[in-house]
């Protein structure tokens, strides 16, 4: 038997314009629980997708049991014994457990029909080895709790004779008791010689469960070590440890009055008692891991999602915002993180996208004043330096950075006082990033209130006057720019659930 069940050497995966994973290596031993951690965008998902044959790397070698493999598709990875339990479970809720366990495979009897007695037996055996013999294989999967549905997924991996089971944030939607059950199951699997790659955002789980841990950052391998040689600080250091270069042309505004105040925002399962205040002339950043509830907070403020409870005040006045239209009328602009899905109508021209959020302002009588629209659009193109052949070009033809500038133009046209920028520089090049920061500087100097949600810590440190750190739908910490805690390490610590002294 080879020393490693799965080994990656010098693997590089590129996407147009980005290197998602560079010269990555990892070795996973049979029968070990191997933790994998990293910041958002550190390349964990890419690694999973390379291991499961979804992404085909440009360079590097993959070995399974010491033998070189070249996965061309997910089926080959599965046949080689690599299975993955994704965060979003691949369960068909209407089908019974047994059909979910055998999805995509058909054990047949001598008549060529599905051999259900055998399938039930195997599924039951697999569930028993996981410590969940109580699951009835005839039961509709959708009627099981999330934790048990996950067991069905793991049983699927086990019956495929998987030697490596990847678990992508398996505990993120589980309750405390379910997490305990899952950990028991994971240990049982290890004792049977199955290797587990355990991807988690929770450091305490890693220390409780894992034998070894690998840290990734910016698509590269940072360290792999036995968990006994590591502590929380070492892991966080590994995840952030990059220098802050001077990419952030931060300028300061004059802090004015409170423009937006949120008190006790609650949304079942998403937000818990979120309160904050945002001021004129200031950039308030929201930091945290993906799924910490930052975007959800902003969507609720903007009236895109309903709140269960909580109060909002704009410039001291209590408001009840029921839809985005009302939010816009109240002076809120919301640049969404998904610019193609929520920010732009790609099939329409630049001109139309720039004026979409306040179209009624361009009316003269019942009709639109196209002359006014053209003037405003051309003005936007000039001041924001949107690179487009003309204002009549459809937005789909523009580059990511220029598309983002169109969205920014759309919102600056709205006479808003409160600007919410959700991941404003995601997926755009460095030059365009700096131009986005300059727009933020300009707005703050004009006395606007700016809220920036960002998953990039250097950006948060570079541009924010104040940071709110969220985790699992709660506000964990609030750190001012002049505080001692205004550094990557402490923000990261709060984001991972640690206490800041």
């Amino acid at each position: 038997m080879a020393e490693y069940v799965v080994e990656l050497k010098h693997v590089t995966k590129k996407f147009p314009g980005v290197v998602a994973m560079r010269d990555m290596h990892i070795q996973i031993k049979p029968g070990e629980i191997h933790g994998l951690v990293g910041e958002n965008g550190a390349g964990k998902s890419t690694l999973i997708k390379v291991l499961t044959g979804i992404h085909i790397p440009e360079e590097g070698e993959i070995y399974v049991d010491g033998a070189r493999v070249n996965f061309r598709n997910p089926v080959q990875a599965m046949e080689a014994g690599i299975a993955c339990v994704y965060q979003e479970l691949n369960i068909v809720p209407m089908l019974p457990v047994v059909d979910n366990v055998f999805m995509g495979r058909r054990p047949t009897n001598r008549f060529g029909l599905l051999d259900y007695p055998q399938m039930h037996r195997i599924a039951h055996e697999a569930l028993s080895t996981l410590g969940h013999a109580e699951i009835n294989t005839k039961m509709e999967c959708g009627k099981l709790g999330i934790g048990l549905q996950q067991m069905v997924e793991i049983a699927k991996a086990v019956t495929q004779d998987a030697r490596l089971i990847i678990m992508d944030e398996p505990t993120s939607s589980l309750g405390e008791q379910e997490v305990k059950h899952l950990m028991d199951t994971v240990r049982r699997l290890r004792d049977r010689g199955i290797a587990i790659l355990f991807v988690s955002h929770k450091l305490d789980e890693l220390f409780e469960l894992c034998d070894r841990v690998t840290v990734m950052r910016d698509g590269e391998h940072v360290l792999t070590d036995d968990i006994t040689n590591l502590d929380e600080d070492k892991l966080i250091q590994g995840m952030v440890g990059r220098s802050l270069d001077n990419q952030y042309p931060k300028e300061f505004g004059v802090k004015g009055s409170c423009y937006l105040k949120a008190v006790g925002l609650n949304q079942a399962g998403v937000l818990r008692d979120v309160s904050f205040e945002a001021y004129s002339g200031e950039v308030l950043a929201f930091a945290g891991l993906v799924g910490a509830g930052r975007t959800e907070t902003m969507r609720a403020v903007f009236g895109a999602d309903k709140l269960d409870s909580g109060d909002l005040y704009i410039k001291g006045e209590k408001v009840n915002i029921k839809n985005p239209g009302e939010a816009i009328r109240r002076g809120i602009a919301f640049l969404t993180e998904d610019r193609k899905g929520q920010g732009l109508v790609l099939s329409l021209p630049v001109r139309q996208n720039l004026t979409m959020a306040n179209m009624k302002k361009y009316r003269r009588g019942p009709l639109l004043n196209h002359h006014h629209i053209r003037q405003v659009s051309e003005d936007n193109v000039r001041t924001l330096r949107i690179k487009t052949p003309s204002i009549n070009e459809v937005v789909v033809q523009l580059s990511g950075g220029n598309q983002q500038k169109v969205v920014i133009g759309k919102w600056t046209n709205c006479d808003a006082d409160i600007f919410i920028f959700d991941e404003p520089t995601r997926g755009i090049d460095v030059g365009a990033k700096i131009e986005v920061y300059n727009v933020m500087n300009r707005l703050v100097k004009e006395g606007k209130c700016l809220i920036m949600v960002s998953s990039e810590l250097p950006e948060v440190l570079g541009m924010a006057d104040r940071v709110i750190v969220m985790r699992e739908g709660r506000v964990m910490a609030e750190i001012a720019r002049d505080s001692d805690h205004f550094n990557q390490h402490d923000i990261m610590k709060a984001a991972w659930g640690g206490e800041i002294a």
Partner: protein
Amino acid sequence: MTQPIAKKKSNLGDLLMKLGPLMVLALLYVIFAFTRPGRFISMANQMNILKQTAVNCLIGSGMLLALITAGIDLSVGYNAILATCTIGVLMQNFGITSAWILIPAAILVSTFAGFMNGTLLTRLDLPHPFVSTLGMKNVLWGLALLITSSKTIGFTNKGIDDVLWIGRSTFDVNIFGVKLLEGFPASFILVLLVYLAFHVFLNHTALGRQIYCVGGNPEAARMSGIRSKNVLTVVYTISGLMCGIAGVVLAGRLNTANTASAATYDTDAIAACIIGGASFRGGKGTIWGTMLGALLISTIRNGLNLFSAGNDIQYIVIGSVIILAVTIDVTRGKVEARARKLATL
């Protein structure tokens, strides 16, 4: 900063796509003119084509709005028929002959049906207008059968000629004593007026532009403060309104209210829009393109008639044209998707 502007390529291909239907129409004219000399290119026949196009143009205009929002209205045919039957029933069973009552009543009934389409779609959150309008199609058909007791109602010499006027009258156009057009149908003048109104509505009003936004990306529209549900409701209500107007024209053209005559209206309207550049994926389409598409279909029908081809052949040909148009639409979509991928960082 050094990022190059994504190159705008294949301007020619773009132009061809836009002019395609016009070129096909021209080609058909040449073919029919040579193969049926004197009969196809005659004043009477040309005016006949316009007359035949009017109803499809009216229904197609509403359909266009639905298609721009990435939806569809499958109830249009029977909605128009219901309008015609409303006129018939009010006349026959209630003795009403005033155009001032009959026409508004017919239009009101259809508009309400359209409003229901929109309401069902947006307030019950039905998954796709295919569902609500297909259901409504059957409801409207049933209603038409119910109120007419499944009988055909004749309009000849019933004293409602002013209701029928718009569907049957024609004009001669003289300029400086030269007879330029002879027998120009009043119904097509109505179409021109309606289309002008649609052009202004779609291009020069906030609501019109919002329809394109909702069709192109409903989520982005919502996040930009556009009340997508209200926009959709208005769209299907207008589609109903246009069916009502078409129903009035139909009364004059067919001289009867007949529940069996709606067979091709739905598909003809969809075909006119798609041929004219609208897409099932929404976000685009123009009113003049729709007119071109409607003319193209009528011309094919007319030409086939001149070849004495029966309904059978016509259905086959029109069906093939629709499939071809959709194929072109899908191809266009693939080309755009590729352009989108290239533009993605």
